[in-house]
C-alpha cells in the first residue's frame, strides 16, 4: 500500500524545516578558530559542568523514576490517572515556570526554605540547584518511556516468577527490570539529553555563575551577545552530542 503522492511535499518541507537550521549552524561555524573557541576556559568550564550535572540528574531520574514507573504501570487505584498527568506535567510546563516553582519550594523564602536554612543547606543558585532543575524537567521522559516498556512487557512473567516462590523484590530485580532494560536505557538517554539542553529552569532556579551553575546552554546564550563565533562553535558541540545521543538511543531500541 502506498501513501498518496502529494503527502511527499509537506513531508519534505517538514524535514527541510528541521534540517536546514542545522546546516545553517554548520555553515556559520568559524572553522579556523573552532579549536580555540571551544577550548576557552569558560567553554571548558561550561562543558564540564554540563556533563557532570546531566550525569547526576540522569542518575537521580533513574533512582526516582524507576519506582514511579513501576507504580504507575503495575497498580490501579483511584486518582491514578490524575496523578500520572500531574507527575508528567513538566513535559508540557514551560521550564521557566518549573524553575520558579523550584525556587518557591527550595529557595531561601520557599516552602522548605527555612527548614533547609536551619540545616545549613542553601540550595538555590548552587550546582545542586542545576541538577534539581534538570531532574525536574527530565524525570517525565524516563517515567513515560519506562512505563510504556513495562506495560508492553506485561505481568505474565512476573506472575510465573512469583508462583516459583520469588518475593516481589526478587521479581523486580531479576525479572521485571532485566526485561525492560532497553526501555530503561532509552529513557535514561532521553533524560540525559533533556538535562543537557536544560535552560529555562536552570537560569531561573540556579542562576548563571561560571563554573558553578553556568551550563553549556547558558554559556551559549551569554556568548551570543559578546562573542557570536564562540556561541556558534559551542552550539555545534551540543548538536553533535544530541546526534550521538539519538544514535545511541536507536541502537538501544534495536537491541530490544
Amino acid at each position: 500500500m502506498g501513501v498518496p503522492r502529494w503527502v511527499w511535499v509537506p513531508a519534505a518541507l517538514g524535514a527541510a524545516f528541521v534540517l536546514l537550521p542545522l546546516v545553517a549552524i554548520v555553515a556559520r561555524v568559524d572553522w579556523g578558530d573552532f579549536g580555540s573557541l571551544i577550548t576557552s576556559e569558560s567553554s571548558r568550564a561550561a562543558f564540564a559542568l554540563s556533563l557532570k550535572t546531566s550525569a547526576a540528574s540522569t542518575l537521580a531520574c533513574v533512582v526516582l523514576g524507576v519506582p514511579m514507573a513501576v507504580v504507575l504501570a503495575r497498580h490501579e487505584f483511584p486518582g491514578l490517572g490524575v496523578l500520572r498527568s500531574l507527575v508528567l506535567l513538566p513535559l508540557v510546563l514551560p521550564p521557566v515556570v518549573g524553575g520558579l516553582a523550584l525556587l518557591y519550594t527550595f529557595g531561601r523564602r520557599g516552602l522548605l526554605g527555612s527548614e533547609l536554612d536551619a540545616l545549613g543547606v542553601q540550595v538555590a543558585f548552587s550546582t545542586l540547584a542545576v541538577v534539581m532543575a534538570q531532574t525536574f524537567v527530565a524525570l517525565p521522559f524516563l517515567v513515560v518511556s519506562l512505563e510504556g516498556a513495562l506495560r508492553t512487557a506485561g505481568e505474565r512473567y512476573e506472575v510465573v516468577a512469583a508462583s516459583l516462590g520469588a518475593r516481589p523484590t526478587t521479581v523486580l530485580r531479576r525479572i521485571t527490570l532485566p526485561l525492560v532494560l532497553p526501555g530503561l536505557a532509552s529513557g535514561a538517554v532521553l533524560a540525559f539529553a533533556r538535562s543537557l539542553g536544560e535552560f529555562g529552569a536552570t537560569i531561573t532556579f540556579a542562576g548563571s555563575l561560571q563554573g558553578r551553575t553556568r551550563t553549556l546552554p547558558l554559556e551559549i546564550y551569554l556568548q551570543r551577545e559578546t562573542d557570536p563565533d564562540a556561541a556558534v562553535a559551542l552550539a555545534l558541540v551540543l548538536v553533535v552530542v544530541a546526534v550521538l545521543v539519538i544514535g545511541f538511543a536507536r541502537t538501544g531500541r534495536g537491541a530490544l
Partner: protein
Amino acid sequence: MTLELSLHATERDVEVALEVADGETLALLGPNGSGKSTALGVVAGTLVPERARVVLGGRVLTDVGSGARGTRVAPHARRTALLGQDALLFPHLSALDNVAFGPRSTGARRASARRTAQRWLDEVGVGELAERRPAQLSGGQAQRVAVARALAAEPDLLLLDEPMAALDVAVLPELRRTLRRVLAERTTIVVTHDPLDALMLADRVVVLERGRVVEQGVSQEVLSRPRSAFAARLAGLDLVVGTWRDGAVVDADGRAVHGRVVGEPPAEGAAAVATFRPGAVAVYREAVAGSPRNAFDVVVTEIEPTADLIRVHAGALHADVTVQAAAELGLEPGLRVVLVVKATEVAVYAR
C-alpha cells in the same frame, strides 16, 4: 498435600467447591468461561473473590468473606507453581537459569540451584539444552523446560493451565508421557480440553459448566459414562438427559430412549442419561419399517465433514454417516429425517 478449595465469585458467577487428595492429579474440564481459570487463579492467589477458602496441606492460603479478618497468603509464599499454555520462559535467562530461578528465589546457593536445575532438565529430557536461550528452543522444548522449572521450585501443588494447548500435535504424545511420569504422586490440578490428557494424566476429573461443578468422578468413569453435555462432547458421545420412566430415559420433549442399563438401574422418576456413539446412529428420510425402539424425528441443523465421514447435527444429537450415504439421502440443513439407534448401542444409567 491435600487441597481444599471453595470459592464464590459473585461478579463472575462462579461457585465451586472441590478437593484434591495428597498425590492426586485432578483434571478440571469445562467449556471456555466455565470458571476453570477463576478456580486456578484463586488457588494461585492471583485472584481474590468475594468469598473463598483455600487450604493446602493444612495451611490456610486464602480465607476471605467468612466474617473474620481473613487470610491472603501472597502468591510467592503459597508453594503453588503455575504452568500455562505458553512456556513463558524468562527470555533473558538460559534454560538452566530459568529452572534454577525457583531454588535461587527460595534461598539456594547458585551452585546447588544449578545442580538441581540440571537434574530436572535431565528428568524431562532436555538436559543437553541447558545453555540455550529460550529464543533458541522449539515450542515443545520450551514447554519441557517450563515443566522442569515448575518442578524445581518444589511446589506443594502444581497448577497446569492447558499445558499442551499451544503445542504442535507431533510433540504431544511424548510430552504427555513425560508429564504422566513426573506428575505421579504429585498433587496437581490440570485444566484441559483434551480427553486424552484427562485419561492419561488425571486420576479424577471435575467438570465445570457456567461456574458450577456439574460432574465429577474417576477419569475413565466420567469419560466412558458422561453425565454432562461437556463431558459427553469430550468423550465424543451423544447424550440424552431425562428422567427414568418405564425402563427408558424420557427427555424434556417426551422422547424415550431405550438401552442397556449400566450399573444400578435408576429409580422410577429419577434423573437418568442415555449415551451412544454418533457412529451407531443411522439416518433415514422417512419412518422405518419394523418400528425400532429408538427412532427420533428431527430436523437437520448442520452438516459438517469430519476426517472421513459426514457428521449430521440435529439439535443436541449427532450422527456420523458416510459421504456416499449423505449424498444419497440428500442431507441438508432444514431437512426432516429420522435418526435410528439400536437399543444395544445405547448405555443408560442414573445421572
